[in-house]
Every structure is written in C-alpha cells, then in structure tokens.
C-alpha cells in the first residue's frame, strides 16, 4: 500500500478529528443550559501545579462524596462530577483549558490556585460569564468588584490585623520587615507595616529580597545591624523580625540566621505556619527565636476532625493547609448551582455571595467582601516548639478571630 | 600580468605549518595548475586565497589590491569564485535551484523587493534561461529537477563548476575539479575551461592530481611541497624538475 496515502489518511484523520471533534463537542456537550436541574453536572477544576493539585484534590473529592450522598438521600435528581484539568504551572495552558472546559458546557471552575493564572484567565470568565471560585489565590491586586472571580483563601491584607494583635499582646515596640520583592510579599509587608505604624509600633527598617536569592548572607548581615540598632533603642524582646516570604526562601534565610547568634534573641513572625522546609533546615534556630506563623484555621469541631482523620487514614498525611478551602469550594459550587436553579454562570454568580455568607465550612465562615474575596478569617497561631529533645514541630498556641478582633491563647 | 599574487603566506594549524611562506603569482587569462602530493597544503592555500581561512602571515593581492582575509562573499563580488574538493552543494535544493541561487545581484534576494513578484520576475526568467542553457551545454538538463544529493560524484563536480558560471567571474579557483570523474567528462570539463580562458579571458587556478589531463591544458604549472612552492613555470619545465620528480612523481608512480 502506498505509504503516502497512509500518512495522508492519518493527517486527514487528525484534521477531521480536530475540527470535527471541536464542533461535535458543541453539540454533544453533555451539558446544555437546561431550565431545570437534573442529571450529572460538571464542576470544572483546573490545578496550577500537579503535585499541589493532588493535595487540593483530597479535599474536593471528600466534599464531592458528601454532596452527592446528600443529594441522593434528599431525592434530588442531580449529581455533581469533577472535570479535572492541569495547567502544569503555565497560565497559557490554564487559559486554554478553561476555554475548552467552558466549550464543553462547564459554568463554574474551582481550583485556580495561582493568582497569575486567575489573572490570565479572568477575561475568559468575565466575557463568557462563567464563575471562577479560587481555593488558592490571595494576591491583593485581584480584588475587583462585580466580576466572575471569587476567592476563598484569606487575601493578603486580612493577615495584617493578626500580626498586629499578636505583636501588641507581646508588647512589641519595633518591627523589622523582611519580604520577597514581588507583589505577594511586597503587598503583604506593606499592609502589615501600615497596621503596625497606625498602632504605634515603629518599623525602622524594611528589606525586600529578590525572590530567586538562595544565599542570604549579605541580607542577614544587614538585618543583624538593623536589629541590634533597634535593640539599643527599644531593648531585647521589644523588637521582632516579620518575614513575608514563601517556605523555601524562609528556610534558606534561616539557614544563614543560624550562624548569626546575635539575631537569636529576636522573636520572629512568618507568614505561613506549617512551613515544613523551615523545620528541615533550621528547626532549632526557629524554636529558639519563637518563630510564629499564621494560618487560616479550620474550626475545632467534629466535622473538621472527621475530615482530618479521613485524610490521615486515606493518604497517610495531614490535610494540606489549602485543602480546607478546596473542600469548601466544592460545597459552595454545588449549593450555588442548586440555588441558581439552572446551570448557568450568570445565575450562579448572582447567588454565590449569598450562599457563601450562609455557609460555614472547614475554612470557617466564608462570607465574601465586595470584591468577592474572603471577608473574615480565623487565624491559627503556631510556633515552632521542641516537642521532645531534638524533635521540633509546629504547635498551635492561639487563635485570632479577625471578625471580632479577638486574640485567644491556647493554654499549654 | 599577474591577477593574483600571494606573498609569503603562512598558515598554521596549532604548531603545524601547513603553508610555510608561499609566494605565488597567477597569470591573468591563463590556466595555472597547482600540483603537489597529498597533504602538501593545496586546499589550505586555496582556502587562504578565497577568504575561507585568514593566513597567519603574508599578503594576498588581487589586481593589486590587498584582499588578505576578506570574506568569501566579498571576494565573489569582485570576481573570485571557487569550488570545493569535496563537493559542497545545497543538498536539498534541486540542481536548477543550485544554479539559480548562485547568481549574483538578485533583486528577489532583497527582502522588500522579494515581496513584489513583478520586480524580480524578469530577472528570474533571464537567470532561468541562463541556467537551463548551461545545463544543456553539458547534457545534464534532464537532472535539473533532481535534488543535489541524488547526483553522482561526477555530476556533483560538474555542478560545482557550473555554479561558478552563473555570475560574472574573473578568477576561478577549482579544487580538484575532475577528481573521480570519468575521463571523457573530465576532458570535456578541461576543454571548456581552456575555451573560457581563451575566449573570455577568465583566469583559472586549478588543483589537479591527474597530471596526464592537467598538463594537456595547463599554461603554467606550480608545484607545492610541504607548504612551500617547489617550482613554477611551463608544464614542461616543471615536469623536468628533478627534485619534484623525486618527491612527487615517484610517489605517483608507486601508487599506480
């Protein structure tokens, strides 16, 4: 047989499959906008990054089972299904995948953990009137009113009062701010600095570090000078370091701080609690310096406990900090679709804020602000503590409730 | 009159002096054949003359101008063209395209003019005729649509030569143009060379191993041994040089 014909056939097959499949998809898409809800309804999921995506998936699958079991019990003829896509860290792929999911009839997409991906895909959501419910994006500059973007994690500015409350409780008088010089770190540091200064805590020195730095020797040297200067004025125990940086940078920085004993008297705040790389690289120093972290804390109740136990039993590890919002994203998506009465992004968008303001999930009360981002948060406060000789772990030491501005220390 | 002169050319590869002070004049309008044993530096000398290598020492003069180390494409523009010992065609271009691309001053090679067909089409048609005529004169027009890599060794050698003729040329430097070519075609090529030098006054500098053929057409012969000119003159005088006979001709005979 003529090989050219064979390949020609292959080529035509690809083209026909591509173009034909594309149009066929329009017609055989299982979900058309139907006036009444029934059958299986997809919830689109796009993960920014494969490994992290699996951790979000744990919470989503658990929630989806709950939702579907409940619908069945209640005799509601609807089931939900996750249609999962991977953006493989690329915003371009994220856009492509969102477009394809929407072509297949998806009207709400969760996951969407990275702010850069949300930003690149925003125009798709807004123009095609499809809801995006992010369980990971926190960047302050995506806070835009009346768009199709909703975000469940605590946005960066929400963290400021928690830092301030703990600092005030400790009687801190000066804070040295250290942050990664990119939008996330910079806006976080800016918000916290403002909160400190408004409350009379001085910020004598701020240092932005390049996000791709790995050797922090010069930076830590500068921090030490600034710290000792401040200690001269305010005294030991009155000056903190406040570091807004991701886990990897934090741990690299602490690896250097370990060799600067003068700094070890400084109590230190970090942005995320449960930073594991920090424990791997500089646990002892972190414990000496009472490194304190903040995190969006799930309520202390049976439901959380059941989830926790299930995840530990199934996957052998504690739930990922953001898997709580991932869990909530599935419930909120399902409830919003049901409330809308129709699988239609525009209608879902209209009811979603009301649903979230009446939903109390594994991440707490999910009420959203005008920009569609989380309005209130209860932060867990944790410290690196030596649990047994040579063994260091993050331990919860208190709770800060941003909605009531109350700080409660957990009795040891 | 000498169209090309080299003065004390030295070319080193590491510590090895492939050319060790070559002084040579190429007479205008004549066929000069460069002989010498393998590895004596003939190709290296040609590479120095045509801008492929820059000599480490010495000067190359063309019509009195210093052209030492000038880039090959600039030398082509002033009339110096060359072929390669191992044919280097544009493999995935057809024979016809190989010729077409070798023509100079093409309007269609200017990126802006290339967009407007009517600017370059007349010239393209002219060149098409010219290359077809060339192919025809060597009875190879049947091969015009073959890709160059489909040609035999002899045909490639011919293609190398025809390529030179697509643009005005004053000095042709040919590196073993008839090596491994059938004697009938070899003679035809050499008689064409001879005719061109006689009719059009084109100068040829030709590296050639096959003395029987070369001597018949050469006006001058120059022998290069171990990077140095051993002797230079009429074919007869060079063949009679004793030292050359010892080093080169005897070797040749032994090989045969």
């Amino acid at each position: 047989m003529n090989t050219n014909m064979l390949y020609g056939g292959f080529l035509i097959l690809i083209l026909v499959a591509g173009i034909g499949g594309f149009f066929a998809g329009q017609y055989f898409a299982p979900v058309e906008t139907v006036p009444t809800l029934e059958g299986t309804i997809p919830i689109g999921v796009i993960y920014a990054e494969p490994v992290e995506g699996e951790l979000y998936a744990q919470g989503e699958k658990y929630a989806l089972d709950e939702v579907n079991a409940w619908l069945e019990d209640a005799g509601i003829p609807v089931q939900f299904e996750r249609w999962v896509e991977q953006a493989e860290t690329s915003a371009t792929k994220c856009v492509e995948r969102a477009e394809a999911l929407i072509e297949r009839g998806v009207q709400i997409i969760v996951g969407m953990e990275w702010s850069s991906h949300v930003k690149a895909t925003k125009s798709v959501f807004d123009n095609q009137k499809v809801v995006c419910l992010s369980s990971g994006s926190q960047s302050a500059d995506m806070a835009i009113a009346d768009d199709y973007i909703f975000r469940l994690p605590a946005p960066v500015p929400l963290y400021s009062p928690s830092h301030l409350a703990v600092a005030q409780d400790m009687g801190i008088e000066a804070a040295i701010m250290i942050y990664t010089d990119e939008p996330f770190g910079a806006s976080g540091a800016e918000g916290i600095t403002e909160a400190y200064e408004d409350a009379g805590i001085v910020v004598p020195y701020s240092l932005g570090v390049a996000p791709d730095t790995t050797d922090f020797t010069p930076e830590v040297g500068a921090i030490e000078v600034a710290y000792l200067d401040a200690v001269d004025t305010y005294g030991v125990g009155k000056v903190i370091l406040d570091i807004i940086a991701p886990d990897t940078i934090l741990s690299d920085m602490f690896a250097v701080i370990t060799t600067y004993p003068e700094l070890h008297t400084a109590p230190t705040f970090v942005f995320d609690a449960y930073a594991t790389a920090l424990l791997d690289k500089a646990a002892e120093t972190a414990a000496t310096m009472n490194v304190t972290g903040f995190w969006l804390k799930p309520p202390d109740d049976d439901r959380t406990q059941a989830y926790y136990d299930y995840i530990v039993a199934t996957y052998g590890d504690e739930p990922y900090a953001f898997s709580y919002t991932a869990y909530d994203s599935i419930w909120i998506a399902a409830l919003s679709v049901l409330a809308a009465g129709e699988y239609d992004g525009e209608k879902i968008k209209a009811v979603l804020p009301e649903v979230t303001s009446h939903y109390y999930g594994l991440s707490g009360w999910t009420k959203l602000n005008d920009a569609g981002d989380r309005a209130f948060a209860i932060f867990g406060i944790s410290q690196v503590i030596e649990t047994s000789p040579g063994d260091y772990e993050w331990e919860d030491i208190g709770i800060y409730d941003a909605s009531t501005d109350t700080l409660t220390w957990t009795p040891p | 009159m000498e169209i090309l002169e080299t003065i004390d050319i030295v070319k080193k590869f590491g510590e090895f002096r492939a050319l060790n002070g070559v002084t040579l004049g190429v007479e205008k309008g004549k066929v000069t054949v460069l002989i010498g044993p393998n590895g004596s530096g003939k190709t290296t000398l040609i590479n120095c003359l045509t801008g492929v290598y820059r000599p480490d020492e010495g000067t190359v003069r063309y019509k009195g101008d210093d052209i030492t180390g000038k880039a090959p494409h600039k030398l082509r523009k002033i009339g110096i063209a060359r072929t390669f010992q191992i044919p280097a065609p544009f493999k995935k271009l057809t024979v016809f395209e190989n010729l077409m691309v070798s023509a100079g001053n093409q309007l269609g090679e200017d990126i802006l003019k290339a967009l407007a067909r009517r600017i370059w089409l007349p010239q393209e048609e002219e060149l098409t005729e010219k290359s077809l005529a060339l192919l025809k004169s060597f009875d190879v027009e049947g091969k015009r649509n073959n890709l160059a890599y489909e040609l035999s060794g002899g045909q490639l050698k011919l293609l190398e030569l025809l390529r030179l003729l697509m643009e005005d040329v004053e000095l042709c430097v040919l590196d073993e143009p008839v090596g491994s070519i059938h004697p009938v075609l070899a003679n035809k090529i050499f008689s064409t060379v001879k005719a061109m030098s006689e009719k059009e006054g084109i100068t040829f500098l030709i590296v050639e191993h096959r003395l029987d053929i070369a001597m018949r057409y050469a006006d001058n012969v120059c022998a290069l041994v171990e990077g140095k000119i051993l002797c230079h003159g009429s074919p007869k005088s060079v063949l009679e040089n004793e030292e050359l006979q010892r080093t080169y001709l005897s070797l040749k005979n032994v090989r045969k």
Partner: protein
Amino acid sequence: MVNIADILIPISTFVTFFAVYLLVSLALNLQQGYTGIPNLGLFLSIIVGAVVTAVLPSRLAMVIYSVPPELNFIEDNAQVVALLNVHLASDPFTSIGLLLLTIVVAAGAGMVTGYLTSFFVRRLDETYLAVFLLALAEAARTIGTYYRPLAGGNFGISMPNFVGWFGADYYYLGLFILISSVSVLIFFLTERLCHSPFGRLLRSIREDELTAKTVGKDTNRVKMIVMALSSGILAVAGVLNTTRQAAAVIPTYDRIDFTFWPWLMVIVGGSGNNLGTLVGTISLISLRRVLIYMKPSLSFLPFSPIWFEHILLGIILLLVMFRRPEGLIPEKPRKLQGP
C-alpha cells in the same frame, strides 16, 4: 434561540489560540526550517512583545483620557483598567489606533531584539547557539517575572479591553477579526517571501553556509535579517496573546509552551515549508483540545486521564520521528515545469 455570539465564542477562542501559535511556529520555521538557525529561546521576543503591550497602550490611553496622575497602572491596575474600559468601549478609533501602534512598536522592538541576538547567531555553533538563546530568553523571563514596573511581575497585570467597542456580546467577534486578520496577513507575507528568491537564499544557507558564502551571499547579513524578521513576528505573537488574554503575565511565556510546543508543531507538520507548519500547528492544537473534551469519559484508564495528553503526544512524536521524520507535509523540491 441560538445566539450568533454564543456560537462565535468557541470558534473565536479556538481560532485566536491557533492564530497566535501559528505566528510562533512560522517564526521558528523561518529560523530553523528555512535558515537552519536553531532557536530554543523563542519566548525572548514574545516577551518583548508582551512587555510592549503591557507598557505602551495603557499608558498612552491614560494620557489620552486624562486618568488622574496619582493612579499608577501597575499599583492601581484594576481601577485604571476599569476606568479605561469605559472610555475605550465608546472610542473605536483610539482603540484601533492604540492597538495598531502597539503592534508596530512591538514588531520594531522584536526586530531590534532579533538584530541584537543575530550577533551571537554569527559567532556561535549550533548547539551553543541554541542553548545560549535559551539562556537569554530565560533571563528575560526572570526579569519580567520579578521586576514589577515592566508588567506587574509574577502575577502579571490586567490589560484594558481594546475591542470593547464591539459591545459585550461581540467581544469575541472583535478578538477573532483582529487576531486572525493579523495572523493571516503575516502568514501570506511569509509565504510570499519564502517562495521568492529570498526563500531560496535562506534554504541555501541552511544547506551549506560556506558554499553560500563562496557563491557571493552575505550570509551574516541574511541571518541578521531573518532573526530580525522572525523576532518581529514573535513579538507580534506576544501582542496578540496579551490582547487575547487581556492580561500580560510574563512568567507564562516559558520554554515549554512557547518553545517546546512550537518545535513540536514544526517537526510534526514538516519544517522548511509554511504549509507543513500550519498543518502541524492546527493538528496539535486541535488534538489537545479534543483530548480535553474527551478526558471526562476516559476515567477507565489505569492512570489519571490528565496525563493522557502527554502520553499520546509522546507517541505521536515518536511515530512521526520514526516513520515520517520529514513531518506530515515534507518540504517538496521546487520543480521547474516545462520541457
């Protein structure tokens, strides 16, 4: 009732995505397929285009519509974009003007970038060159990712909507017309160029640069022109993609999506001819899309269907490499007709 705009959306998203990639693979084909310049850093010039789009038209629009100077495009991005969108939606002339200006300036900036990189193209061997261009592009991406004033750093910035005047319902029609017409125009110009003596010259340099030199071609100059031209095209692709996404997110221009994929498209389609490039681009993009469609019904697979796409692409690439190394549409000899 079927709304015409609703049908347009999927067509527009598909075609515009394809149109952007077509430019990238065309540029690669000019460099690698025609001239033999192996470039692993295509995204360098794409980033240049994206940065020009991030910097230029919105700043100009801010001046034109006298947005209060205390508002900063990067720091108050959402606010500025909202303001500008209101103006632009009712001002087609300014919108088009700004967009055309951006395309021209970006193409110019891309050409300068290509011109500058061409100095390395002359001096470095193939392998070194490919890696060097990759490193250069990575450096640009790193700067774009961390230096906020350019394009908002790693989170990117939102762009005002330059096709808003089509009306909300016809936004996608606007994108479709704009992006596909630019892309089609460039395709035909490139095709025209490649079928002229200039194209022949490029292929001769690819085949044997030294021979090309000895027949009188200034190959360095030609390579410079090719680098400038193709980088200009890449920069336009950057503008179009930024316009398409209504956001400039520099880290998205990475070596996988904007170098590896285009290489795959050119290899699968057949390099050294623009039709092959077009077929390779559309095949891979459609295939990806079909796979996304099919994934929900692939749950029977023993592995997560998320990775099916990669496995299938791997298989296709292997098949093409082994059975048809010239690509689906191989470069054809340009035969001279007649007796």
